[in-house]
Each structure stands twice: as structure tokens, then as C-alpha cells.
């Protein structure tokens, strides 16, 4: 449970349920406002439908490239500002090539806000020599480490946003399947993604029903009613799962799903293209560590 100061706005429920119409067919997932971050614009799906080089790359190639990129970013030593600046430029280049609107990237970056608070506290609690900044004594190492962590987290979040904005959920599943994720896990993921809009829609309807009976939320005494909603949501989801499974059995399901998605193998050219981002990042890291003095 995360505590959030501010009125219980049900931002999450709204974000999720408001776009129940955004189905998988159009490559959309319900907005994930996660309860405490007002991501707004619930009508917006995750995928930004464009036809660019980045969009056309197979998902498994993009997944590997993004993870490799973030791994190099994470492995970068503390305080190498020049290297981080080059990474940011490289990533901005990908954002531009993929035609992902900068406004959308900025809005989705709000997911990091709780972490920004932690990074901001770091200079005050970390050990090491103290320096005066604007008349306040802070830890020098904490300041550098906090700023570095913030940069790394931001680069990771933006990379993940670009991945999600250029890859349809079903393609992502195909990519994960191609990356040898166990079949049961892929099947669970696919059912989760298919039914996410249904379940959050269920939640939304129960909230509307509750509030139409006068429970507009916000008072502690009403927490029991909210918990009742969550309890019924579990029973409804479980029973829906049973029904879906029985329907599958009735149609001849014997433990193996037919190919859920039609992912195609990636060509060597595509691997090379996608690898250009992590490779450029790695070259930058090596250059900055070995050539550029501190």
C-alpha cells in the first residue's frame, strides 16, 4: 500500500475504466494510472500508431535492444555527466525517429514522481563530506549519487515508454514468445492483456454503482464498501476465469494454446539496426571512462 496525500480521486479507476473501449484490436491497453499518479488523458492508448522504422522492428529485437541500452546506462559510473548527456541525445534521436510525441513522453514520465522524492532526499541523508549548496549543508556523494540515480531512472523510463509506444501488445507477446518465455507464462500474459480492459471495466461499473448510491468516497467509514468492491472483483475475475477455461475445454483445449500470435523471425539487418542504440551507448561509456578524464 502506498500512501498518497490528497483527495482520494479514484484516478486509477477512472484511468483504467474510462477507456474500456480501447481494445486490443486497436492495440490499446487501458491506462495504468496506478492509483496515485494522475496520468490524465485516459482516452489515450499506450501504442502510438505510426509507420516508422522503429514501429516496424520485430518486438523481440526492440526488447533486447532496450534492455541492453538500460543495462549499459545502469552500469555507467556515478557522476559521468558527459556520458549521460550523450545517452539522452541518442534516446531523443530514437524518440524523434519513432515520431512519439514529446508531450506524451513527458506525461508518462510522471510515473517516476515518487522516486524523484527519494532521490531528492538522498543528499540530506547520505554520508560523506558535506558541501554547502545555497546555504544548506548536504552530502557531496549523496548529491552526485542522487542526481545520477535520477538520470538513470529517467533514461530507463523513457526507453520503456518508447518501447510501449512503438509496439502493439500482441506484438510484444510474440516477441516475448520468440525470446523463449515459457508457454504458460505467455498464455497467462495474453489472457491478462486481453481481459485487463474487462476487469478494470468491471471495477469502474462497481464504483459507479456504489457512488450512485451516495458513497462518493473519501471518508474512512466507507473503506469497508471499497473493500467489498475489491472482494467482489476477485470473485468475479476468478469466476470469469473458470468460465473462460470451461469454454476453452468445450472447444477442445488440451493444455496447449494454438499459436496466439504470428510473430516473425527478425532479419539480421533488423538486429543490426536495433543494436545500434545499445552499441552506441556502450561505445560512449567506454570512451568516457577510458579517454575523458574525470
Amino acid at each position, binding site marked *: *500500500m502506498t500512501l498518497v496525500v490528497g483527495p*482520494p480521486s479514484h484516478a486509477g479507476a477512472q484511468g483504467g475504466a474510462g477507456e474500456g473501449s480501447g481494445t486490443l484490436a486497436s492495440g490499446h491497453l487501458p491506462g495504468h494510472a496506478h492509483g496515485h499518479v494522475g496520468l490524465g488523458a485516459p482516452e489515450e492508448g499506450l501504442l502510438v500508431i505510426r509507420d516508422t522504422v522503429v514501429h516496424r522492428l520485430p518486438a523481440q529485437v526492440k526488447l533486447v535492444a532496450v534492455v541492453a541500452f538500460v543495462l549499459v546506462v545502469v552500469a555507467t*559510473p556515478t557522476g559521468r555527466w558527459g556520458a549521460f548527456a550523450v545517452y539522452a541525445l541518442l534516446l531523443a534521436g530514437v524518440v524523434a525517429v519513432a515520431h512519439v510525441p514529446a508531450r506524451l513522453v513527458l506525461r508518462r514520465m510522471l510515473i517516476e514522481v515518487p522516486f524523484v522524492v527519494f532521490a531528492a532526499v538522498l543528499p540530506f541523508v547520505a*554520508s560523506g563530506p558535506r558541501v554547502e549548496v545555497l546555504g544548506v549543508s548536504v552530502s557531496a556523494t549523496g548529491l552526485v549519487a*542522487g542526481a545520477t*540515480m535520477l538520470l538513470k531512472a529517467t533514461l530507463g523510463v523513457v526507453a520503456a515508454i518508447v518501447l510501449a509506444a512503438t509496439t502493439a501488445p500482441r506484438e510484444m507477446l510474440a516477441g516475448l514468445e520468440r525470446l523463449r518465455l515459457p508457454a*504458460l507464462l505467455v498464455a497467462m500474459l495474453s489472457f491478462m492483456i486481453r481481459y485487463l480492459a474487462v476487469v478494470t471495466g468491471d471495477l469502474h461499473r462497481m464504483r459507479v454503482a456504489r457512488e450512485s448510491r451516495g458513497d462518493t468516497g473519501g471518508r474512512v467509514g466507507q473503506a469497508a464498501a471499497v473493500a467489498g468492491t475489491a472482494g467482489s472483483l476477485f470473485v468475479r475475475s476468478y469466476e470469469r*476465469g473458470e468460465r473462460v477455461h470451461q469454454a476453452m475445454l468445450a472447444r477442445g483445449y488440451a493444455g496447449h494454446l494454438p499459436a496466439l500470435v504470428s510473430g516473425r523471425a527478425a532479419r539480421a539487418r533488423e538486429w543490426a539496426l536495433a543494436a545500434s542504440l545499445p552499441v552506441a551507448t556502450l561505445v560512449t561509456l567506454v570512451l568516457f571512462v577510458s579517454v575523458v578524464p574525470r
Partner: protein
Amino acid sequence: MHLPDGFLDAPTSIATGVLAAGAVAISLRKAERGLGAAGPALAGLVACFVFAAQMVNFPVGAGTSGHLLGGALAAVLVGPWAGTLILAVVLLVQGVFFADGGLTALGSNITLMGIVGVWSGYLVTRAVLAVLPKRVTSIVPAAAIGAFLSVPLAALAFVALYAIGGAAPIPLGALASAMLGWHLLIGVGEALITAAVLTAVVASRPDLVYLARGLRPDLVVVGADGVERRVPAETASAGGGRRLGSRAIALSLAVTLLIGGGLSLLASASPDGLEHVAATLGFEHLATEHATATGPFADYDIPGLGALGPVAAGIVGVLLTLGLALAVGWVASRRSRSTLGSGSTGAGTGSTGAGSSSAPSETSTSDTTTGRR
């Protein structure tokens, strides 16, 4: 609780990634007889529920609201193996599609919430259930205590990970006490929400609650002749499931010990981590006199080949631990299969199946299996 990228260093991220992959692999094997037998659709929908439950805002008072983490709740509702699996799937979707939780921190997040959160919640709940009266309603206070303790325990696990591969030198004692204090408070909220949600589930479908199986009273039928007949609430196979459960506890304890051993192995194999811990602890006593120029950061700034040594050692350590854990799981599952004899498939399916309503589906599943053979 969703860690972003860059919070823990690369070796720790990779090591927890390997650890999480191993745990998910074991859970997949285990859940194949439980939730897996009930179908991926059921598991996927429970994952949807956990995802949606995290979006529900609970009024906490004073204009504050909170939401659920759900590890202990998932363990109580669907069992620990399936719980780990479901939390892993939820975290994967959150990381890949919603940029919530870093991609390289996925392993750490699964380790903290999917392994520590789920298993500590499950084990504490089982322990409390053992001393409470055998009633279905006992699950509510037991799960509340489990949920309450699972949050600070996960926070402590985070402090342990931070000690090994944290990005900034925070005095560990201060970090541990701050994390514990804050997460004890969060744990209270988690306990209240878990208890309230479970109360609602127990009221309508107590048979769905994994840990409440075997707690339901027998049906007493009094005939016209006044003769009482007891119809057990659980089928015989469910009883087998409970016996399997106690073995699962022993197994999980062994795995937990091994994982703990693996982490310390990693710590001792990685000079970075140990130096870091020693330095931060040293700073606590020496205050600001110590110069960091020659401290851990001097080491942090030499990456490349030099850093590959401890990484490789750490990974080898974790792999060894995982190998041991997998071997234990394999032996345990072999033994459970041999003790249950030829009826093992049916018993295994029924033990963690979805209760009476899914009985036809179980039958047809085993029918198809037999047919294929």
C-alpha cells in the same frame, strides 16, 4: 515499491534477475498442478484482479488514500506458487507496457514483491492459522497479520539488496530504521485492506480462498430417522492438498535459506558490495572525517574488465544456489509423486483446483491426458 532502473547497480540487478527467473521457473513447475491445471485463463484473470486491485484507492483519513501491494493477498487467495507467478506477470506487464518499475530492475522487483512479499505473507499466515481455531473466518485475522509483516519484511529485503548493490552510501542502520518505520505504517494499511477484501471474499465464496481450504465445517445432514450424517466440506483430494501444503512449507523454508545463502555468497564474492557496506558502516562511526576520494567510489569508477570479475563470481554463486534450490524442488516433487501413487495426477489437480464448480473441467482435463497417452 516499484524500483526504477539505476537504484541498484548492474551486478545486483543481473543477480536478482537470475534469482527471479529461477523462482518463476520453479513456480511454473509447481503451479502446473495447481493454478496451471485450472488453466492459463484463470491465472491471467487473477493477474488482472491484482493489477486492478492496485488501482483501487482506499480512503485512509485526513485526505489521504492508499492502495494495495497485494503479495500476501495473492498468496492467501491462490497459493504461494501461483502468487509468485501472478505477481511476476503483473510486474512484467507494468514494467514493459507502463514503464512502472525499471526493465533492469524487474528481477529486483519480482524478488522483493513476488518472492519475499508473497512467501513471507504466506508463511506468516499459515503460522498464525495453526494457532487460531479451525474456522473459515480465522483466515481474516491470520491474513491481516501475514500482510502486515510481509511489507516490512520486503522492506528489509530491499535494505539487504541495497547493502549489496546500492547506488549511494546511506548509513545502513539509518536506512533500515527509516524503511522499517515507514513500512510498518504501510503494513498497517496493507493489513486492513487485505482483511477487508478477504472478509468480502469469505462471505460469498470461501471455497475460492486457497488457505481457507480444509477450514470449512462439514455438512451435517440429519435424516428423518434422526440419524446424523457428516458430509465433508472438502473432497479427499483436497485433504491430500493440505498434506502437500505442509511439505511446501518445509520446501519453501529450505529455498529461503538457500536464497539467503546465495545473497551472502554474492556479497562475499563481490568486493564492491562488501567494501560499500563496510565503508558506509565505517562512516557512521567516523562521521565526516573520512575522505571518500579513497573510499568505495574510487572503486566504483573503474568499470570494464575489472568489474566483470565480481559480476561473474556473483552470477556463479547465484546459479549454484539456484541449482541447489531446483534440485530440492525436483526431489520434493518426485517424492510427492511417488507417495501419492498412481492417482497422483487427479489428486494433484484436485488439491489446488478451483473447488466444486470446476470439477467437470478437471475430469475432462485428466481424460484428455489419459487419451493422449
